[in-house]
């Protein structure tokens, strides 16, 4: 079976901690911000715990399909941590850790994975109060979130608000025209938009070197006059620091930034995928040593930010938290089929009313096609 060979990405990127968790140079100030450090550490562990749990649920058929970010948690966690309350974030399915950093509710996310309609989730697991950072729904169609994010940032720029909008794109998705159209708008309108390319080397079965002949993904921003940066995506401090700088510049009217965070998809693309078919699994060993959680953990232990019992304590507590969230999600009833009609237009229409009646009739065992006058089934 022929497989794609991988090309290891160049490592001449910005890095704060080496793979063993040792500083490579002077430490940025976040290294002294213990609260943020612990919160990032916790978030990455939480993401992994959630992924592990939902994977088991998927195997049991309780959720239909999940995309894990195992080994990539530092990218979304470190970048989202650089936001401030009031900011906006436009994630894809691969940025669970960004949501969790800002305390997005796991029970709601799990209910979504279980296939509940958003209306059902809102009814049974209502959001109380606004989250400090606003997250859009997770985008499934690729690359379209970036233009929406740039539009969001344009509004802040036009209104003189100092909010920042963050969005994410995979390595593969940079091949979509959408990505370039969005970055071009960001450049022209000096939008306070920070875009992170989570380069995990693979787009399902297609390796990064087959996506583009560009030297790096970061350089794609040259096409749009947007400043760019390339960081070790498995080093949460490097991701944080580069994003913080970009966010500050954006907040101060300095316009957009594009950041490539180099990481690796340690696992299958999603649970419908079988990666051993198309890639050499040995390559994973190389990356195993670069795990972002281990790296931060070593650093925190070394600095005494956490103590020796903490790693297991955190993990244990998070497993429980996840389990509780699952329990709450399981309480959510199966969505009523009629929710499929909700929230299309704000008003109703003849055809919506009529089709709701048809569906109701069908569910009641009646003939939904009994209306021959257009005056309804009753």
């Amino acid at each position, binding site marked *: 079976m022929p497989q794609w060979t991988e090309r290891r990405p160049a490592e001449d990127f910005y890095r704060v901690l080496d793979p063993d968790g040792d500083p490579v140079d002077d430490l940025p100030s976040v290294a002294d911000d213990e609260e943020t450090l612990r919160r990032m550490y916790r978030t990455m562990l939480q993401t992994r715990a959630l992924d592990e749990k939902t994977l088991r649920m998927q195997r049991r058929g309780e959720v239909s399909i999940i995309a894990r970010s195992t080994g990539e948690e530092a990218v979304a966690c470190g970048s989202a941590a650089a936001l401030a309350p009031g900011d906006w974030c436009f994630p894809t399915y691969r940025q669970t850790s960004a949501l969790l950093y800002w305390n997005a509710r796991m029970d709601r996310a799990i209910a979504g994975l279980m296939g509940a309609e958003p209306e059902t989730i*809102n009814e049974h697991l209502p959001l109380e109060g606004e989250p400090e950072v606003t997250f*859009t*729904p997770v985008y499934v169609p690729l690359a379209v979130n970036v233009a*929406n994010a740039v539009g969001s940032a344009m509004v802040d720029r036009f209104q003189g608000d100092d909010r920042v909008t963050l969005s994410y794109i995979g390595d593969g998705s940079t091949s979509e025209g959408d990505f370039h159209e969005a970055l071009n708008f960001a450049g*022209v309108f000096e939008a306070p938009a920070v875009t992170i390319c989570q380069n995990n080397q693979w787009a399902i079965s297609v390796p990064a070197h087959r996506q583009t002949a560009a030297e790096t993904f970061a350089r794609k921003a040259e096409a749009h006059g947007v400043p760019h940066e390339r960081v070790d995506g498995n080093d949460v401090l490097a991701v944080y620091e580069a994003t913080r700088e970009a966010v500050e510049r954006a907040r101060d009217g300095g316009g957009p930034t594009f950041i490539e965070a180099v990481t690796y998809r340690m696992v299958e693309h999603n649970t419908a995928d079988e990666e051993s078919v198309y890639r050499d699994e040995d390559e994973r060993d190389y990356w195993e040593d670069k795990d972002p959680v281990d790296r931060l953990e070593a650093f925190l232990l070394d600095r005494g930010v956490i103590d020796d019992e903490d790693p297991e304590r955190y993990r244990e507590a998070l497993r429980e938290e996840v389990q509780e969230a699952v329990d709450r999600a399981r309480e959510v009833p199966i969505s009523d089929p009629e929710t499929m009609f909700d929230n299309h*237009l704000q008003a109703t229409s003849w055809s919506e009313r009529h089709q709701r009646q048809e569906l109701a009739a069908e569910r009641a065992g009646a003939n939904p096609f009994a209306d*021959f006058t257009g005056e309804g089934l009753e």
Partner: protein
Amino acid sequence: MSLHAEPRDGQEGREMNIVTAVNETLRQEMQRDDSVRLLGYDIGPIGGVYRATEGLHEEFGEERVIDTPLSENGILGTAVGMAMRGCRVVPEIQFMGFFYPAFGQFMYTMAKMHERSGGALEVPMTVRMPYSGGIKSSEYHSESTETFLVHTPGVRVVVPSTPYETKGLLAATIRDDDPAFFLEPKKIYRGGTEPVPDEEYTISLDEARYVRHGEDVTVYTWGAMVRHAVTAADAVDADVEIVDLRTLSPLDVETILESVKKTGRAVVLHEARRTLGLGAEISALINEYALDHLHAPIKRATGYDVHFPGHQVEDAYLPDADRAQHAIEAVMNYEF
């Protein structure tokens, strides 16, 4: 159901054509609501290739009348983002035939965000597109592909047919919180004037308009074709009812059925290609819910199933009063 006879007797207001009505309505809506922003290429100093945004860049500045890079998909995508953040956005696509590169943002975000967010996010935007033929221009400048929009849930599709209608419908569409398309029949942009009131008014987005009442046959039409329906109605030996659909999505099915149940005969007149043009849906609805009332098959006087042709041939493609009249006569003369 609102009923305007044509001509609309005693209507007060300034005489203006459709493109002026668009311009004045945009100005009025921008004055009354600071969150209204226009977006598109060539809408700034030049005021649009049809001058629909003339003077607005000067009056409201480049952050409310935003000349963009040349990307329809970029326009739609950023407009959705702006709308999600509370702006009431009015993007312009220069010609409907250049909407296709924006289909991704249309389907994935504009039509979907409200539903996808369970109602949490609103996307109040009105995409203006000059559309339809008759101007003898080059490729893709004459399209009527409203089918693509009407088949997609989550958006409104509105088409005015007169200056008065333009103002009321455009104001209503902009103020409505749903994402919408406002299709401007460019052939009649300057094709005649009528008095348009200075004061603000809106027209319901849920109701078709009876252009005239009649007893024998209904012509369903919209946009630039309404005038041909009127000419044909005057010419035939039958009492013709004309329904200007004006909101193509969602359709005012009540009015559609009400009319044909009275007349028993129907013709649909539209510029779009016939196969799966909106005429197909109207015919199917009538068949489903008013078959008993039909005295004749429903005929579709439409464009043909071809790419919009070059300008030497355009007139033969486009439906006109003659084609409408033939269709009316065909259904009038039909005997079971």
